[in-house]
């Protein structure tokens, strides 16, 4: 009689640990592949999360016989043509023997798919969010009471009855407070004695009862000493929400290639924030002479022409923050991509706008995309402005990008968490 068991509900993923060990073993190789994929690959593909990885050093060698060596005889099925003595040209190796060969010979490469989570872990492994910890600890804006043991004094509403009574009980037992039952028993006996008329016993009992009553009073049933209150301490709550502002210059000087680079940068930042915070919102702001909030599609794909007024975008950002994102509840991140052009007369407005933004945001990353127009010897308008601000604000980080492959490097540098420059 067989025992039939349904195992389908047993936990699967018995192999997870083995898989992790496997990834760990090829860590460096995978990292390189991931990096290459990011710098050369298509962002859309990466977003899919699946990435093909080829790693070496994954063979499990065992002693084997070189299939080309030796004088061998073997039997095969299905002879429909040969007679003894027939000769055949040797086929490429393995031409017959089914069992031997194959195992661990030569080929040491192993290819597999990395899933999205693993992929992102590799991407963000060395990175950390700048200033995140600082903000959480420093600006204790959100506080939540948290249970922290018990105290002797407190609000009556926080009285812990069970604990108080436990103390009371312990004390009563310890000090030997007479129980009501004992008293009742004696009183019953007293009644009986009175009925019988045993004067001596009545007297004795009366004394005993008096004594018990006295002790009951002197040892209270509940002493203030017993009372316990639940204790709460205010605990700072880390903010789990973040909003990311993507600001991009869409004036005539920004071509598709530049936008593509910007897009990659924003993509990384978004992925990164998503792994750190429970909730991440994105606001897309594009600007030329005027700034407007747009959806993602429009942000990346429509093209405008005209001049460049950076302050317009910064002001809009500030306005959106004021309207929708309470500084106490949200971690604010701004990423700006631009070719560095700005109208000269906008300089003062830009500086003023930055002074309103920088104190409230967590991080401001500025990526300047250098194209052919700019020589790298002279700085752009915007670079100069930000450069002077960067001395004042640690969390304003800026970088130059010239090629797509730089993006990853830049991103990594910006988010190293360690000091830049």
């Amino acid at each position, binding site marked *: *009689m*067989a*025992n*039939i*068991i*349904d*195992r*389908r509900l*047993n936990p*699967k*993923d*018995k*192999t997870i*640990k*083995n*898989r992790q*060990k*496997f*990834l*760990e*073993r090829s860590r460096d190789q995978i990292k390189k592949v991931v990096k290459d994929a990011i710098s050369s690959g298509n962002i859309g593909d990466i977003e899919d999360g699946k990435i093909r990885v080829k790693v070496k050093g994954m063979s*499990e*060698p*065992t*002693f*084997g*016989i*070189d*299939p*080309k*060596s*030796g*004088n*061998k*005889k*073997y*039997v*095969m*099925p*299905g*002879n*429909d043509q*040969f*007679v*003894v*003595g*027939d*000769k*055949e*040209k*040797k086929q490429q190796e393995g031409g*017959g023997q*089914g*069992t*031997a060969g194959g195992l*661990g010979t*030569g080929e040491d490469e*192993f290819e*597999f*798919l990395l899933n999205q989570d693993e992929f992102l872990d590799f991407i963000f492994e060395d990175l950390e969010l700048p200033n995140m910890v600082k903000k959480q600890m420093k600006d204790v804006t959100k506080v939540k009471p948290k249970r922290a043991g018990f105290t002797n004094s407190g609000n009556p509403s926080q009285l812990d009855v069970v604990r108080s009574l436990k103390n009371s009980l312990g004390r009563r037992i310890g000090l030997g407070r007479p129980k009501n039952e004992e008293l009742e028993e004696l009183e019953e006996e007293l009644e009986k004695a009175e009925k019988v008329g045993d004067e001596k016993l009545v007297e004795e009992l009366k004394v005993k009862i008096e004594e018990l009553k006295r002790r009951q009073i002197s040892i209270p049933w509940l002493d203030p000493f017993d009372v316990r209150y639940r204790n709460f301490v205010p605990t700072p709550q880390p903010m789990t929400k973040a909003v990311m502002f993507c600001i991009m210059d869409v004036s005539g000087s920004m071509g598709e290639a530049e936008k593509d680079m910007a897009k990659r940068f924003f993509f990384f930042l978004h992925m990164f924030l998503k792994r750190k915070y429970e909730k991440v919102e994105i606001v897309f702001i594009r600007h030329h002479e005027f700034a407007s909030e747009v959806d993602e599609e429009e942000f990346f794909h429509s093209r405008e022409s005209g001049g460049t007024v950076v302050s317009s975008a910064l002001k809009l950002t500030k306005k959106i923050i004021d309207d929708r994102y309470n500084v106490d509840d949200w971690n604010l991140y701004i990423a700006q991509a631009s070719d560095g052009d700005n109208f000269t007369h906008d300089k003062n407005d830009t500086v003023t706008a930055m002074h309103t933004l920088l104190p409230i945001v967590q991080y401001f990353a500025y990526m300047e995309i250098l194209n052919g127009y700019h020589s790298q010897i002279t700085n752009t308008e915007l670079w100069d402005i930000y450069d002077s601000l960067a001395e004042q604000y640690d969390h304003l980080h800026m970088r130059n990008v010239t090629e797509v492959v730089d993006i990853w490097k830049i991103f990594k540098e910006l988010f190293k968490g360690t000091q830049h420059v």
Partner: protein
Amino acid sequence: MSKLLFDSDDWTFERLRIAEDAIAEIAYDELHLDVYPNQIEIISSDQMLEAYASNGLPMMYNHWSFGKHFLMEEQSYRRGQSGLAYEIVINSSPCISYLMEENSMTMQTLVIAHAAYGHNHFFKNNYLFKQWTDAEGIIDYLAFAKKYINQCEEHHGAAEVEATLDAAHAIMDYGVDRYKRPTRLSKKREQEQQEQREEYVQQQANELWRTLPTKKKKVVKEEEAVFPKEPQENIMYFIEKHSPVLESWQREILRIVRKISQYFYPQRQTKLMNEGWATFTHYYIMNRLWEKGMISEGNYLEFIHSHSNVLTQPTFSSKYYNGFNPYSFGSEMFDDIRRICTEPTKEDEEYFPHLVGQDWLETCLDAVRNYRDESFVAQFLSPTLIRKKRLFEITNNQRDDYVTVTSIQDHRGYDALRLTLSKQYSISKYQPNIQVLSASMSSSRELKLTFSPYNGTELNQNKTKIIEYIKYLWGYPVSIINTGSLP
């Protein structure tokens, strides 16, 4: 009332139970099978993939290579390159058979007959399994191994454990005493552990004694005795006991890998027989169920369809040819034994006088008990089957750029074909003969291994890597000497 066991393609636990009862009746009463208690477990395809990754064992210690195997299986499955097995069966008591939930009721019936009765009987009765494995202890032992290796990781670091396991896996095939009978695997495991603890305590004590001033020993500078006295085939065991550098936990890990290797040792040598017998069993049982009117015509046809798929044997010239299909060749061997016993030809009387007229079932059961693939083929491959399979023999000499057909399916070829095919199933055919020759324990501490090639074969390039692994375990130089081709 209908005698049908089931009237739907979908399986339910109730139907499985009914089918299993009917199968058991035939298995016991007609085939006289003797099996471990059966435990049939239904699993999903994901779980089946996971089971693959750990050699089908229900439990295994953690190692990256199992993760790799899982990825490989998963990939080829997802790409549709390979289907999943209908079942996996474990040589344990109770004998665990995993059945996939995707199987139809007909398939579940087939699989129960195949695994829970065919394989199970083989595990319990074949002499190799009886001698080398301990069905009752294996699950416990695996649990112990997993826990122990986990602990080692905690105490000594995952990297160290991994390095030890990597090296141990590389020489896993050389962890078996082929000619000595091993002791029962878990027989008094407690006792063994006890011994080990004592050994460990003793080591500590030795360490203390070492610091005491010793009496001047008579210094007799002897010629270094050859150690070991005789070549050792069990390289792992030798290293485990004599390595100058291994920590005691590393020795225990070697022991674990060695024990698991030993557990699988009979399987590799009985693949043909084991699958053949299981196939023979399920074919017999399914046909009996059909004859008794217990499965419908439609379900019977479904069975025949899947049965003949499993039994496909591409011929040598086909691009799908990948050696002999053990399911078909194995079951054909048993079919043929039955035929020789019951309907012998003149030729059979000449070749198998001792079989003719014997009870076919007893003969088959005897073969299951007392043979492995190599001896099975040598003993029972008949001219009839040789012709039916149109076997031929190829001679392939290293120095020639051609191969020669040296025997075909005619009366001059029968003996040669049987001999060559039998050797093809010999373990020495795919596993080079490597042994420990000597270890110089008092001077250089070099470990010398010998490779005794067979017909001029050579080791493949893995040799260098494995020497590195052995060096890691031995701690001192390691070399392999080619003893020169034996005839």
